[in-house]
C-alpha cells in the first residue's frame, strides 16, 4: 500500500478517535490499526501452546495485519544456523486459507506450509536475513508468530489447525 493512501486513511481515521480535552480518559482497548482480534489471539494462543510443548519457544512479537483477498504481505526476520524454526500463522474466519512461505535473503523460497497446516518448519544452514510471506485467499486479519527450537528433531505440525468449529 502506498504511503499516501496510508496517510489519507490515517487522517481519515483521526476524527473517529476521542482525543481532545479529556486527557484523563481511558485509552480504548483496541485500535483498528493494531490489527488485534480476540478471536484470532485465542486461536494463536491455543496453537502456540501446542508448539511450545514440542520444545520451541516464542521469538519476538506477533506480526499482525489485514490481508485483502489474494493479497500478500512480508516480514523480515533473522534466523540463526544450528536452530530450527516454526512459523505459525492464524487468520480470521473470512480468510479461507493462509499460505505461509519463507524466503532467504536472495529471495529464494526455502520453506512453505502444506495446505491445511497453519505452520512451516525450517532449519537454516546459515545465519542471516529471511523473509516471511503470507498470502490470503479471502479477506481478514492474520497473526504470525515465530518459534525457535532445537535441530535434529521432527516436529509434527498437522495437528495445529483448529477444527472448523474452533476457527476464529
Amino acid at each position, binding site marked *: 500500500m502506498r504511503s499516501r493512501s496510508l496517510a489519507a486513511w490515517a487522517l481519515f481515521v483521526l476524527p473517529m478517535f476521542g482525543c481532545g480535552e479529556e486527557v484523563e480518559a481511558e485509552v*480504548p482497548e483496541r485500535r483498528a490499526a493494531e490489527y488485534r482480534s480476540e478471536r*484470532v489471539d485465542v486461536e494463536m494462543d491455543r496453537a502456540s501452546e501446542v508448539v511450545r510443548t514440542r520444545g520451541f519457544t516464542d521469538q519476538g512479537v506477533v506480526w*499482525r495485519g489485514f490481508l*485483502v483477498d489474494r493479497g500478500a504481505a512480508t516480514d523480515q526476520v533473522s534466523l540463526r544456523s544450528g536452530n530450527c524454526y516454526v512459523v505459525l500463522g492464524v487468520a480470521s474466519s473470512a480468510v479461507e486459507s493462509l499460505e505461509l512461505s519463507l524466503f532467504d535473503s536472495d529471495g529464494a523460497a526455502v520453506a512453505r506450509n502444506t495446505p491445511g497446516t497453519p505452520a512451516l518448519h525450517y532449519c537454516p544452514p546459515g545465519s542471516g536475513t529471511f523473509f516471511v510471506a503470507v498470502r490470503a485467499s479471502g479477506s*481478514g486479519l492474520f497473526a504470525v508468530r515465530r518459534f525457535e527450537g532445537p535441530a535434529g528433531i521432527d516436529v509434527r505440525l498437522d495437528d495445529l489447525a483448529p477444527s472448523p468449529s474452533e476457527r476464529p
Partner: protein
Amino acid sequence: MVAGPVLLWTGLALAAGCGAPPEEPVDEPSELLGPLDDLARRFGRLRRRLETRGYGQPTQAFRTFVLQGEGEALPVDLATGTCTTWVALGGGGLRDLGMTVFDGDGAEVASDAVRGEGALVHVCPPQRQEDTVRRGFTETAPYYVELDAADGSGAVVVGSFVSAVGAGEGFADLFEGLLVPPVPFVEVEAALTEARETLRERGMQPEGEPDFERMVAGRSWRRPIALEAGRCYAVVARGGAGVEDVDLYLYDAVGAEVARDLGQDAAPRLEHCVDEDESATLELRVFAGQGAVGVLAFSAPQSEHVEPTHTTEENEEEPIVVLGETLREFEARGFDDVLYVVRDAAINPGESRTHRLTLGPGCALLAGAGGPEELDLDLYLADDTETVDRDTRVHRRAWVAACPAVATPYRVTVKAYGRGRYALARVVASTGEGALPAITDIARVRLALAMDADAADAPVETYVVGPDEPVEIRVPRNDGCVDVAVAASESVLDVDLLLREGDTLLASDTGPAPWARVTHCLSGPRTGPLRLQIVAYRGEGEVVLRWLHDQRPEPRVPNESPAPNLAPVPPVAPVAPIVPAMRTHMAATRAIEPQEEPFE
C-alpha cells in the same frame, strides 16, 4: 498490508490531528481529494445528495488508486452508537468497485451492493452498555474497510458521513446519473464469435479469451501480447452500438509500430508474422463514438497461415489476377518485361504505402490493382523532387508512368480508399525494335493505353492545348462511329475530349486524367457538322491524338462547310479501354483534392 507502517501513519495522524472533526464540508478539492476533475465533481454531487437526505456532512474525503484484481484494506475506528456511511466513486478504467466492512475480529459485517464503479456501505457499531457509564471517553470500535477493484483500474474518491442511528432517508437511487451506464458486451461478443469462425477457417486459433472494454472517443487501451517465433497473428476488434471508428495498432518491444488498421469503421483487423519471439503491445483506440469494444487475438504457424478469402464474394478476383489481366493488355500495346513489385499486400482505408524502385532509361509503367472490386486504388509516382505522375481515378486499377533518359530512382505510393489488398508491377515500354512503334514519351505511353491494341500502329497527330485554348477538330466522315483517343504530356495534368454535333454534346470524356477517349456511334441522320474539342482542364502543353477507326479529320479550317457525304462506316461495338474513363470531374473531386497528395 503490514501493521507497522500503518501504525506509524496512524500515530502521525493522531499526533497532528487531535481535536474536533472537521466541521466544514468538502466543498473544494483538498490535497487529499485531488484535482477538481470529473471524478471530484461527481463526488461533490454525491456528497450533496447525502447531505440532503440527512446523513450530514462528510467528515473527510480522499482519493486513492486501485488496480484490477487488487484491493486495499484500511483500519478505521468507528464511534459506537452512531452510524457511518462510506461512499466511493471510481474513475478512469474502473468498472466495478466493491467495498466491504469487517469488524475487529475480521468478520464481514457489511458489503456494497451498488453496481459499477460506485460503492456504499452503512454501518452502525453498537454501543456496549458498560461504555455508556464511562465519562470523558469516546468509545470506538475497530473496523476494516476494504476497497476491491473487481473490474478495471482507476482512481477512487472515498468519503464518510456520520449520522445518528435511524437518521437519513435511505440510499435508493443515490448514485443515479453518477455512474457510467452499463454497456452490454453481448453484441460485441457475438461479432467476435463471427470473426473467430472466419479465422478458424484459415487455420488460426484464438489466443486466450477476448477482452472487453467500455470506451469513449479519444480513449486508448493497451495490453501486452506475446508473439512466438514462426507464427502469424491476427488481431480483430469489434465495436458495439455507438462505437463508430476503432483503430488497432501493434508495437514491437521497443515501441515501434509494426502493424495497424486505421479504417473508418468499428471492425479493425491487423495481421503480423514474426520470425523471433517478441513482447509486443496491442493498442486499441476509439476514434469516434463510445460504447463496448472487444478484441481477440488469433495465431497460426506461418506454414499453415492461409491468406484471407472473400467469403462473401467467392467469385471476387484477387488483385494479382486483375493485375495479370491488365499486364497482358499492356503487352499487346508494347509493354513487357514484367517485374512484380508487390504480389499481395493488405492495405487499409486511407493508408499509403510507398515502394522504391529505379526506372529508365526509357519509358516504364507501374500498374496496380486492388481488391475487392469496390476498392479505389490510387498511385503516385515521384522522383527526388516532385510527383511526376498520378492516377487518382476512382477505380480498382491504376497506373503511372515515367520516361527518364537515364536510370532514375522513384517512389511509387499506393493509396487505398477501402479495405483490401493490392498488387503492383512494373513493365517497360517498347523501344521500337519489334513490330510496334517505339513509345518514347509520356504522351505516347498514355495514348497507347487509352486505345485498342489493334490500333497501336495508327498514325499520331500532335496538338498544343492550353487552359483557354481548346483545340477543335472537325470530324468529316460521321455517318458511322467516331472513336478517338488523346493523351497529354507531363505538363498537362488533365485533358478532356468532347464530341459535338452543332451545339449538341454527343459524347465526352472529362475524367481527371491526362488522357481521354470518346467512342460514339450515330443513331440517326446527321443534323450538323461533328466537332471534336480537346480541352486542357489542368495544365498546358502537347497532346497526341489517334483515330482508332478509319476516320480522319479534315484539315483544321474553322467554319468550313460540311463535308460531302461519304459511304457509311459499319458501326462497331464500343470497346473497353484498359483504363476506365467516362467519369465526371465531380465524381473524382475527392481524388484530386490537394490534401490527398501523399507527398505534400
